[in-house]
């Protein structure tokens, strides 16, 4: 696929199908340390794409670069969203295009109720069904504050519910299973499923292969490089085999195919 156009920013001329999210040759470096190295990835609309990798491989950095978090701008490469180069846009403008993200460790707020939090962008929304979807009883939680009184798991579920309520075009879930017990993986799967049914694309970042199996497509990152892409079962098997532990794939990509 060839997106054409100059980098960064500027209009992009398409000469073929453009996925909703297209990451082209993305690199990110802090000092002398390469966090991401020439990484490419695409996600279609309403597609769930899992990004597998062990700790410290650059998965969260990839999420922050796509979302546009402060301090995260590519050293090289480009990020296209719906055909538009977005790497120069601030976070809130990307959010207004329909990109959102659930942090691995969601932040707490004083004085904001769960009901307020789920309806930040739409006061007419009924938040109850979204809490139920995330495995929380609305009667018990809607009036509670999104503060330190919540456990890590409760806060995480509220974040998942809030992302579904937003109905984004692209939802990035950074380790959605962290802090939630094993028996609740079905809740995460339900959240992802509803996002997909709502037409949201999902970038599902995880270090657990069983989570990646929820996805339609999967990729594995190792030491900042994409080493494997394909069907989730294949990528999960490759990831589980730890074949790329030395991370010397000769430029990365398609190590599992």
């Amino acid at each position, binding site marked *: 696929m060839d997106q054409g156009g100059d980098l960064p920013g500027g209009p992009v001329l398409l000469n073929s199908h453009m996925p909703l999210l297209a990451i082209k040759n993305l690199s990110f470096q802090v000092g002398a340390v390469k966090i991401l190295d020439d990484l490419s990835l695409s996600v279609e609309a309403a597609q769930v794409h899992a990004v597998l990798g062990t700790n410290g491989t650059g998965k969260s950095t990839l999420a922050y670069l796509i979302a546009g978090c402060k301090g995260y701008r590519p050293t090289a490469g480009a990020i296209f969203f719906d055909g538009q180069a977005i790497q120069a846009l601030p976070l809130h403008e990307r959010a207004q295009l329909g990109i959102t993200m659930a942090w691995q460790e969601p932040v707490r707020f*004083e004085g904001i109720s769960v009901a307020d939090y789920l309806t930040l*962008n739409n006061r007419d929304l009924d938040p109850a069904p979204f809490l139920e979807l995330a495995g929380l009883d609305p009667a018990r939680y809607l009036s509670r504050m999104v503060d330190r009184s919540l456990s890590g798991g409760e806060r995480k579920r509220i974040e998942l519910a809030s992302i579904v309520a937003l109905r984004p075009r692209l939802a990035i879930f950074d380790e959605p299973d962290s802090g939630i017990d094993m028996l609740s993986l079905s809740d995460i799967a339900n959240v992802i499923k509803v996002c997909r049914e709502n037409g949201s694309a999902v970038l599902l970042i995880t270090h657990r292969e069983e989570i990646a199996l929820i996805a339609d497509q999967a990729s594995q990152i190792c030491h900042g490089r994409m080493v494997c892409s394909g069907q989730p079962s294949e990528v999960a098997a490759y990831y589980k085999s730890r074949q790329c532990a030395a991370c010397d794939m000769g430029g990365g990509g398609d190590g599992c195919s």
Partner: protein
Amino acid sequence: MDALDQMMAAFAAAGGDRAVLADADTAHLMVDGHRILSSRGIEGIEVVARETPSGLSATVRVRQGVRITRPVHLCFGMLHKKGSQHVRMAVQVEKDASVSFIAHCIFPGAEEVIHTMDADVVVGEGAEMHYVESHFHGLAGGVEAIPKAVINVAENGRYLGEFNLVSGRVGRLAIDYLVQVQKNGVVELLARVFGHGSDSIDVREKVVLAGENARGLIKTRVAVEDEASAEITGITEGNAAGARGHVDCMEIVKDHGVASAIPLVRVTNPLAKVTHEAAIGSVDKKQLETLMLHGLSPEEAVEVIVRGMLR
């Protein structure tokens, strides 16, 4: 419109419920400047107020064992643009009694107003008092408010105090509270203030945990913007075995605002423990980004965080 009507209108505009002042089962006291406009006591609670050359002197006494179910409403204000009002209050909540106060201090058109209060509060053995004081100083920044209180909480007593000044300008605020807590007593002080323009905020609260297993919390939430400044001093002493205290101060600084926090903890008994935390700075980056990822503009996100903190 007479003074009472005007004060009632200001009371309602500041969030007060006018109906409660007409309710025969609700005690209240309403003052404009040096004039008592309206007052009522109910069975079990005695409200005695008299006008003084400088303002007002009032005593409130809740009799032993009486539990007042409806909050007592106090309204101290001034309709004039200029003037001074000194309030002297003595509150006694006798043994095993309980009462809640909702106090409004309203100066809607103030340009040069000085409001001072000296309160002497005694919460008796096993008694409970909840006091919420909300101020509205108008938009001119012309109020100087200096509330002082000495509060004694007897064995097994509880005192929960809240101070709110989050709408309009502050002017100059200087709070000075001292609370002494005896065995198994509990005190919680919460202050929320939002300063704008050239407002000056000075909050000094001291809790002395004098009795065994006494508990104390000083919690302060302040935001300053424009050129406003705030200095928050939270002092807790743990002087008896099992005493537990905590000082928690959070301040958000915008524009050219300046904020400081001085938590002072002192322990004289090895079995007592007092902790403190203070966070001062601009709006938390991760909070801000989270709200923007939920579709808010940067300005909306800051507003939600500041208002949430002051809620």
